[in-house]
Each structure stands twice: as C-alpha cells, then as structure tokens.
C-alpha cells in the first residue's frame, strides 16, 4: 500500500538506517519509477529484465544503506549510481555470453550512431546523449552507458587522452544546457 506521509531526505535516511518498515516502503513507492527510468536507459527493449534489475537495485540499497554518505551526494543520486553500475555489469555479462572481445562491436557502433529518429524508445539520459555532437556523444556514451575509463575510450576511439577529456567536459556542459531547456 503506498504510504501517505512524506519525508525529508534526512528523515528518510534516518528511517532507512533504523531499518524501519515505513522507510523502505516509502523508498520503494517514491523512487521505483525514477530508478526504472534509469534502468530502461540501458535495457530499453526488455521490461522483464528491467524489473529484475530494479529488484536487485533495492536489495543492494538495503544491504549497503550504512555506506551511503549524505555529504557526497543526495540519496537518489546514490541509488541511481547503484542502478547504473548494475546495468553496466549486466550488459557486460550479456556481451561476454555473446562472445565479443574488448573492442568496439556492432552493437557499440549502433549505440554510438543512434539518432532520435533511429531509436524513438531512448529515454532520459540516453535520449539526451543522442542530441550531442558526434565526438562528444561517442565519448560520453562509452563512459556513461558502458562504464569505460577515459584511457579505454582513448584507445577505443583512437584519439589522444586529452581529446577524450575535453570532449567529455564539453559534452557535459551541453547536457546541462539541454536539461535546463526542458
């Protein structure tokens, strides 16, 4: 049953650390839709897989709640990061099963050239990334969607490390504007 009260972030974190029923109940009902959006950035075509990943996110949040540091980020950012890491691991597992080596595969290239017209089901951050200029989109997609380090991106795209850094920074500045527009 959805809870009727609302909590400030500090109150909610306190309830969660106390392992109170209403804390986790609220956490689920208030954040599950937003977290599902994050997950569907990564697995847009599989709603069942997305819901399994959502369950895993909540298990991890429950077990790691004592590690959450309110000075470093807000609660949602921390949970969204857990969700993103889980999705990246899941996609890597799927890739290994498919037998590809650590170089750009066809699906990577598809990912990189995706335009809004080609992928109408792109949502949230994934949709915004497709609106960036090519160089910045490639770098940020490899970093955000696949969890590659700047060094790996430099090798994958065959550009200098400095170029990767500046493309990512410029891309992030543009993302901020795009988000502010809406």
């Amino acid at each position: 049953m959805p809870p009727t009260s609302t909590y400030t972030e500090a109150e909610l974190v306190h309830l969660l650390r106390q392992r109170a029923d209403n804390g986790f109940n609220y956490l689920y009902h208030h954040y599950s839709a937003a977290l599902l959006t994050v997950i569907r950035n990564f697995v847009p075509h599989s709603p069942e897989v997305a819901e399994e990943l959502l369950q895993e996110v909540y298990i991890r949040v429950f077990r790691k709640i004592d590690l959450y540091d309110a000075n470093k980020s807000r609660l949602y950012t921390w949970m969204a990061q857990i969700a993103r890491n889980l999705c990246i691991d899941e996609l890597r597992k799927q890739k290994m099963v498919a037998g590809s080596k650590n170089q750009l595969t066809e699906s990577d290239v598809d990912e990189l050239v995706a335009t809004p017209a080609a992928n109408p089901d792109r949502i949230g951050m994934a949709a915004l990334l497709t609106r960036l200029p090519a160089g910045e989109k490639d770098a940020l997609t490899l970093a955000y969607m696949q969890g590659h380090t700047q060094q790996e991106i430099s090798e994958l795209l065959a550009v200098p490390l400095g170029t990767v850094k500046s493309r990512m920074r410029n891309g992030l500045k543009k993302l901020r504007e795009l988000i502010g527009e809406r």
Partner: protein
Amino acid sequence: MTAKEYIESGAIEAIVMGLADEQEVQLQQAMELMYPEVKEAREAFEESLEQLDRREANQPSEAANQRITAMLQQELEKFRQIHPDTPGSARVVSLVSEPAPKPIKWLRSALAACVLLLMGSILINFYYFSKFADYRTRYNELLTQQNTLLTRQQNLEAQFTVMKDPEIKQVRMNAVAAGAPLLATVYWNTKTAEVYLLMNNMPKPQPGKQYQLWAQVDGKMVDAGVIDPNDQQLALHKMKNFNEAAAFAISLENEGGAPEPTLTAVQVLGKVI
C-alpha cells in the same frame, strides 16, 4: 580557478553522473568545503537529473511491486533476526504475570508482580544507560572527526592558494614501472624557486624506508628533501628550493635519505615541460 570557473567547467556534472576519477572527487569535496555555491550547484544538478528521470512515466508492473515489497520485507526480517536490538523490531514482552486466581493468595501474587516490575525497571535502566554510553561515545567520535575535518580544510585551503598561483609550474611524475598506479606532483614556483610536493597516490613505505625527492640540475640528480612517511597524506610538502630543474623524481631510500638516488629504486619521474 574561481568557484564560478569550476562550476562552469563541467566537473560537477561529471561527479554527479559518476564519470569522475578519484582525484576529481577529492577536488570536488575540497571545493564544496571552501565554496557553498559549489555544493549548491552540485545539489541543483542532482535534482534536475532526478526530475529528468521522473518525467518519463515508468511505473513498475503490479507484479513487480508486490515481488519487490515482499523481498524488502524478507530482508528486514532477516536483518532483525541478526540484529535483535533494531528499534524497528520492538517486541512486547509481558513483564507482569497474571495475578493468581486464588482470592486468598492475592497478596503474594501482588508481591510477585511488584518484584517483576522492579526487575523490569532495572533492565530498562540498563538498556537506556548502555544507549546513553553509546551515544556519548558517538558524540565524542563526531567531535574528533570535526576537528580532523577542520584541520584538513585549513590544509586544503593553503594548498589551493599555492596550486592556483600563476607562477607555479606543475610537474606530473608518473610511475617508472609501466602500469603501476603511482602518482606524485611537484608544484614549482619558478619565480621564488619554492618547490612543493603532492603525494597523490604513493603507497606508504615499509618501516625503515623513506621517499626522497630529487631534482635534475645540469644532468645530475640533486637531493630535494625527504618525505616523512607518517605525514604523507594529501597535503603539500615544502621541499628544498631550486632555481633550475629539468626533471623531478622520487626514489625509495633507507630512512634518513641518501646522498645520491638509488637508480633501481626510482618510483616516479616527470620532466619539466
């Protein structure tokens, strides 16, 4: 770099999206301590990303809702079995027994009830006292932590003043052994000849050993000072002054340092560009 420049640089967006490395995270934390507007900008971006995710209507299915809330309930119960003093798991234990039904012995039963109540009260006192002791310890820990943080903040502010001086030349010293994640940085004021060292990522030396900084002058390695292994943390060390240097390096020597570097023990090296 001013707070405004930092906020415009895209660094905050990288942090919030999980794309920053350890150094960038530490810089962010330092900037937030020094400039409240940096923290505000970070929180504002976090909120806008949350709103972005909420904009799409992605409600989980009813089946998923039930499955996940049931799973969370299971996790809670497992947790409470392992941690029985969790506040959320209060169990009510009856402290007062039913009075004996025999009317003649009601006094004895009343006495038994009083003794039980007293025992209960004593137990509760022990419980609250241990809670109090626990909170007092935690409070003291927080005070200590706060002092440490204040000192750290002062150090960071001082470092920042040095690092942003335009006369400063930054010399990055990377690992000599390929792939080793070592890093140290020299901040050299070419005008005043002052040399500062930041040990970004250098493991603590074994007992009896000490890191030593060297400057390459006219083709020879000159001693630039040793680093106290107990004071290695992220703080600027002031080393010896140098008017000229073509490169800097750090080697691992015996405690007390050496007159010349042990070439096989050089850890990191950087040329002055």
